[in-house]
């Protein structure tokens, strides 16, 4: 524990730029006969190591609220009283924030960008029987965690499944990852998804604290796989990609990995245009009305659409749906309102699978292109939601 539990709540209606647009502070609406405001607690990283993701999520959420409530901030006349709390990426703070919110009668929680925080929040949701809509955290375990927990983003299984377009029966796939929960999760996901499609999956796990990847790159060469799936997060990715380029891995085989947010576009160095990327989202990934709404809302506020913008956007859509169809007070009714719901999201058509609350959604295959010294993603292929759907969680 970082020895700090609760952080702080901000004012209802949110922080800085979006306060007016959400309109939650408008005085009149409180007296509407439609009833009490619906309390919503958004817990996410305002500070800490994942603050950048947090900011993207937050802005996406504002865009989604604006879109789903037509700029009113109310649902059928009921005000949404939203508190935003910083978890600093720390589960202890998140739990404290959740308890405080639940203690105050909140029935809807959303957010967090960190898998380490999502688990404890899902646990709180179950213990206290409140609705929880997880954010960008990719851990597969969130899906099917309990009947109170949903997710607005994608999960590792979907990332992995996106590579399936690149493999054929009998392909030899090597998963290159760090030996931590994220890496292990990706290996498990690859085995589950790709072996089902007839590929052989082997793994090369590197100790998490390792900083020297050259010998491992040489080992990939020796293994001669048809496809290398790289599941990597964090600061060492630059060195890892450099090692792969230096040892000639990129020339010798087909390498795929997950394209992260804009700030990581520079991390691939010489590998940038030699790698195939699978991608959750980038601004140009989808061409539909909802995405346009997202991108233009963000541009107006001086922000850029990025990897986790849709996670925030969809979270807002889901909350509005839950309140509109489920009333906002009875958690069971809200769950019913969300299960099986099909809707248009920035990425395209999405569906919440009723059985385990998996978010069925399209995924993308992209390449990086050098545009005037800047690497920018270019869409290669859109994978249909059903094709990359994760296996049902038990």
């Amino acid at each position, binding site marked *: 524990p970082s020895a700090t539990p609760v952080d702080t709540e901000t004012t209802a209606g949110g922080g800085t730029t979006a306060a007016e647009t959400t309109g939650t502070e408008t005085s009149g609406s409180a007296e509407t006969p439609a009833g009490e405001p619906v309390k919503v607690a958004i817990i996410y990283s305002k500070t*800490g*190591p*994942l*603050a*950048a993701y947090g900011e993207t999520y937050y802005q996406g959420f504002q865009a989604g609220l604006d879109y789903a409530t037509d700029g009113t901030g109310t649902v059928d006349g009921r005000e949404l009283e939203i508190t935003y709390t910083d978890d600093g990426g720390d589960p202890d703070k998140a739990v404290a924030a959740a308890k405080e919110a639940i203690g105050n009668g909140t029935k809807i929680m959303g957010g967090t960008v960190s898998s380490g925080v999502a688990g404890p929040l899902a646990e709180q949701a179950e213990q206290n029987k409140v609705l929880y809509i997880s954010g960008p955290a990719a851990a597969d375990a969130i899906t099917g965690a309990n009947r109170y927990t949903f997710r607005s983003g994608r999960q590792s299984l979907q990332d992995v499944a996106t590579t399936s377009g690149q493999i054929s029966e009998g392909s030899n796939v090597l998963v290159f990852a760090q*030996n931590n929960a994220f890496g292990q999760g990706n290996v498990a996901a690859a085995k589950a998804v790709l072996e089902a499609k007839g590929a052989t999956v082997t793994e090369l*796990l*590197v*100790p998490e*604290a*390792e*900083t*020297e990847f*050259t*010998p*491992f790159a*040489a*080992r990939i060469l020796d293994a001669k796989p048809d496809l290398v799936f790289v599941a990597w997060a*964090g*600061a*060492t*990715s*630059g*060195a890892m*990609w*450099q*090692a792969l380029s*230096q*040892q*000639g891995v990129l020339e010798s085989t087909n390498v795929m990995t997950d394209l992260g947010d804009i*700030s*990581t576009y*520079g*991390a691939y*160095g*010489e590998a940038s245009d030699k790698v195939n990327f699978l991608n959750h989202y980038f601004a140009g990934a989808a061409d539909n009305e909802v995405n346009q709404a997202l991108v233009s809302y963000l541009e107006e506020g001086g922000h850029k659409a990025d990897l986790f913008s849709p996670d925030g956007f969809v979270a807002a859509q889901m909350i509005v749906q839950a309140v509109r169809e489920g009333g906002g007070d009875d958690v069971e009714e809200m769950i019913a309102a969300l299960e099986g719901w099909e809707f248009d999201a920035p990425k395209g058509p999405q569906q919440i699978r009723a059985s385990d609350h998996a978010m069925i959604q399209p995924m993308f295959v992209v390449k990086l292109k050098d545009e005037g010294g800047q690497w920018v993603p270019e869409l290669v292929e859109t994978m249909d939601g059903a094709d990359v759907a994760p296996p049902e969680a038990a």
Partner: protein
Amino acid sequence: MSTLILLTFTGLGLGALYFLVASGLSLIYGLMGVLNFAHGSFLTLSAFAGFEVGRRLGAGTFTGFFGSILVGAVVGGIFAAVTELLLIRPLYKRHIEQLLVTVGLSLATVALFEGIWGPDPIFLDSSGWLRETTEILGARIPNDRFVTILAAILVLGGLVLFLNKTRYGLIIRAGVENRSMVTALGIDVRRAFTLVFTIGGIAAGIGGVLASHFFGYVSPLLGGSLLIFAFIVTVIGGMGSLAGAAIASVLVALLQQFANFYLGIGDFIVVLLLGVVLLVRPQGLLGKAAA
């Protein structure tokens, strides 16, 4: 065979990096009794400074590279000197407090760097030659490893000469033991201590810039990630022994490298090594018996 060679060279490169960090630590500890938790911050700030300068001088050029090393060394030295003057000097002789103050400094500076440069790593472009590899017996060894190893050797030689051949070296060794007695011989020992800190900072600064090239990024956590291993190296080598730090750096890095590659448990092996060394030889490989 080529794997062995590759592992050996990359291990030596890593060891050189450990040494650049550990040499300053060991020097400061050995001579002043201060276990410097802020050493990682010296390294980080230098890496950032080197990054900013390298970027302006040309990210892919040798000018940029050497410019950034120079600036990194200067920044590390200045940061260290200021730290010594403002925080360590008022606490002379109170070693635990000195340690605590450096703990506080590392907390504060890492947070400050996050405020300035953001918490995420910034990936950097190294110069062309550094990014390339040289083939030795079938193993393609990244060129920056050679540069790092060379830098470590130069720093080691310079430090040994300084301590054993200069009057400042003598003053420093005496001052560690009994500062007030050194002043009572008419010597201003505080200047010597500032110098030690500065030298440690310079070594860390060089290490920081090289580390940023080695790892391919700069981030507020860069220094901290190396610090624990540098501590371990310092203890295994024998606190205060430069030669010990050099040997232990190479030993730890090679062991870690091989164990990680073949067994995937490099970190545990290193901790195990530390445990064994301390049980068999509590003062470390080349440490002075019971100081």
